[in-house]
């Protein structure tokens, strides 16, 4: 990891308030014109992203919301896909959302010129279905778990996330290893440096305690991740297991729709390319005596792995949106680790790294070639 610069700022009332405070100050100083930030919905039982300009509304901002319904990258993309616009925007999102944002920028789906990404040390998010059961109770549970950095109630993919403090945006708020009533503010770009400067934050302070805590957690999670993937593999790999796993899929394609890096306007798997004649279907059924209809559920999932696992950030949104509780997020996190490792690629790590499938190196991947060649 590159040497990151950072400072320490007071955080007496709690991390959410500290962030809001910071944003308010920035807005006052004209550093930002608007902010993308989670906010509680009027019914009070959920959180969504809101682009806020009005300072009065900013108070209702709720960074580090207990759930992730819309992936923050999708929010940033929605605002900037058609151009950077004239507003300077801060996006308060989680590390995996920041990473997906970077992937989207590479895919031309976000223009980050006027966006300052501010990420936060992330304890994970709650599974949507749990949260919706009793929003108030679960918000409290989430906050308690956050204090203790306890991930047991979080999404399964959050429990094995080794990039929960990864800094890929412009600024990052660190709480790990911070002394009481303080937190770290880490800059990862010139944009971040300039914001800190305007806010009179000294970025040359000691980050050792944050660094070492992050490293420890990351290593521990990495171990957990490898183990979990290994276990998962034993239950889902192989054609039969795969088919069994996806057998309950009802083709709603929700997983694709909520995926931050699935960007197609018209998914290949909704296009004419997957539509066949009755005769074709019948012939296929006859060859086996019986055929699930629609067929090709596994093809859909594997096709999606092909299309986007390189950019998958393991946020787990797909799993949460699956109405049939298929562990699709965990499966994708496993596949993504493997496909990305092929190219020594980490999705969202850096804007400067090209997406591997649109680039190549002449000397690489010889292990894939026929040994006799």
């Amino acid at each position, binding site marked *: 990891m590159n040497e990151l610069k950072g400072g320490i700022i007071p955080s007496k009332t709690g991390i959410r308030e500290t962030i809001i405070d910071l944003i308010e100050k920035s807005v006052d100083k004209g550093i930002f014109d608007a902010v993308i930030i989670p906010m509680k919905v009027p019914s009070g039982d959920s959180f969504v992203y809101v682009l806020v300009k009005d300072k009065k509304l900013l108070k209702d901002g709720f960074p580090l919301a207990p759930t992730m319904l819309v992936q923050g990258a999708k929010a940033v993309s929605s605002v900037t896909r058609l151009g950077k616009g004239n507003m300077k925007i801060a996006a308060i999102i989680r590390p995996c959302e920041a990473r997906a944002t970077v992937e989207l920028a590479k895919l031309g789906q976000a223009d980050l010129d006027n966006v300052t990404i501010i990420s936060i040390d992330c304890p994970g998010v709650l599974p949507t279905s749990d949260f*919706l059961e009793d929003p108030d109770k679960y918000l409290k549970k989430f906050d308690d778990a956050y204090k203790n950095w306890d991930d047991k109630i979080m999404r399964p993919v959050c429990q094995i996330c080794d990039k929960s403090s990864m800094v890929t945006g412009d600024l990052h708020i660190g709480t790990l290893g911070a002394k009481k009533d303080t937190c770290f503010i880490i800059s990862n770009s010139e944009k971040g440096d300039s914001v800190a400067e305007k806010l009179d934050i000294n970025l040359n302070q000691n980050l050792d305690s944050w660094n070492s805590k992050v490293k420890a957690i990351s290593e521990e999670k990495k171990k957990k991740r490898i183990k979990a993937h290994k276990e998962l593999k034993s239950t889902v790999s192989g054609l039969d297991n795969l088919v069994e796993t996806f057998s*309950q899929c009802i083709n709603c394609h929700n997983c694709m729709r909520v995926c931050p890096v699935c960007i197609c306007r018209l998914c290949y798997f909704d296009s004419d390319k997957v539509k066949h004649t009755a005769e074709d279907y019948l012939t296929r059924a006859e060859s086996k005596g019986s055929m699930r209809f629609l067929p090709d559920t596994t093809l859909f999932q594997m096709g999606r792995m092909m299309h986007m696992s390189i950019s998958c950030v393991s946020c787990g949104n797909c799993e949460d949106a699956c*109405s049939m509780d298929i562990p699709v997020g965990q499966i994708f996190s496993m596949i993504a680790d493997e496909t990305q490792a092929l190219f020594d690629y980490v999705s969202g790590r850096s804007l400067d790294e090209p997406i591997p499938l649109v680039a190549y190196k002449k000397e690489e991947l010889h292990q894939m070639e026929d040994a006799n060649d």
Partner: protein
Amino acid sequence: MTKALKLNKSAEEGILEFLKYLLESGKVKGVFTLKRISKNSAIAYSLITNPDELKDAVPFYPLMPVNAGKLMSRFTLKEGAKKPVAAILKPCELRGFIELIKREQGTLDNLYIISSICGGVFPSRTEVDRSAEKKLPKYWESVKKGEISPDLRSVCKACEEFIPYTADITFDLLGNNDIDKHSIFYLNTKKGEDLAKDMKGDFSEKEFDRKKLEKINEKRQAEKKKLYDEIGKKMNGIDGLVEIFGRCIGCHGCSKVCPICYCKLCEFESPDSEYSPSNYETELRKRGGIKVPPGTIYFHLGRLTHIGISCVACGQCNDVCPVDIPVADIFKKVGESIQKMFDYVPGKDVEEEIPLVSFKQEEFAEIEE
């Protein structure tokens, strides 16, 4: 009076025997039905061609993993079936299919539609948490008595369209106390009669027990009123809508599973529905803040304008919503209100025009006031 075939077997066995006969006699080349497809007893629609495979078929299982109307559309979209295929559809699935046919999204060519007097289905989640299996005995008791099973989808409880309109064969289920002992197939059409013709069983002229069905309908109506009252209270002005739809995450899952939504690319996913930076700036000047991605209520209302007229209230959208918005309840209520204006029951008759692509010169004179 309709021709009817009676088999002295339980409904479960009777329908399978019938389907087996169809496949073995070659009267159909394939059977479209629900089937257990995996070890974990997942239920999915399957196209069965080998009679042996029927052993896992569960035609009347009270689940609707996908609205089969959508599947039949997919099956016949590119080209109608060339060989005869029997499809077992629930009444709302059949109606969905008919609505799609009206939109050129499928054909009835060579299809034999078998439907049933339907007792409703469970929410799909009951399959996920494995509770469906446990709820079955209670469900069948309710069906026999013509009662509303408490485990049904909200829209099923309130459904008055449990008798299929255009099925070739209607299987007698709801309100039939003897489904353990025998199976009754009403042969509504010439096609239906041809299918059953050489089957071993008792043929007679028979009529639905209209009175009994009327009674069931009354219970459903009461349930519907309850549902509408409840949801109606929430659908209160723009604030009410914001309360209901505010947490929508814009996954559009509801439209993806909707048997009527048939566009390749949904208008609400098209470039026209995207906000440019200047749009955002305008919105912010006006509102101070805006949900991103925006256009949630616009999407739902817009979808109502597109397909409300044809909504068959199957309830798929409710099931698939990751944030538990009662989409189906709302669509049923609003859909019905516009359908009534045109005296239109979606899927009742394939020849009937969709009201919004036709008109009468002498109508709605009062709208201009």
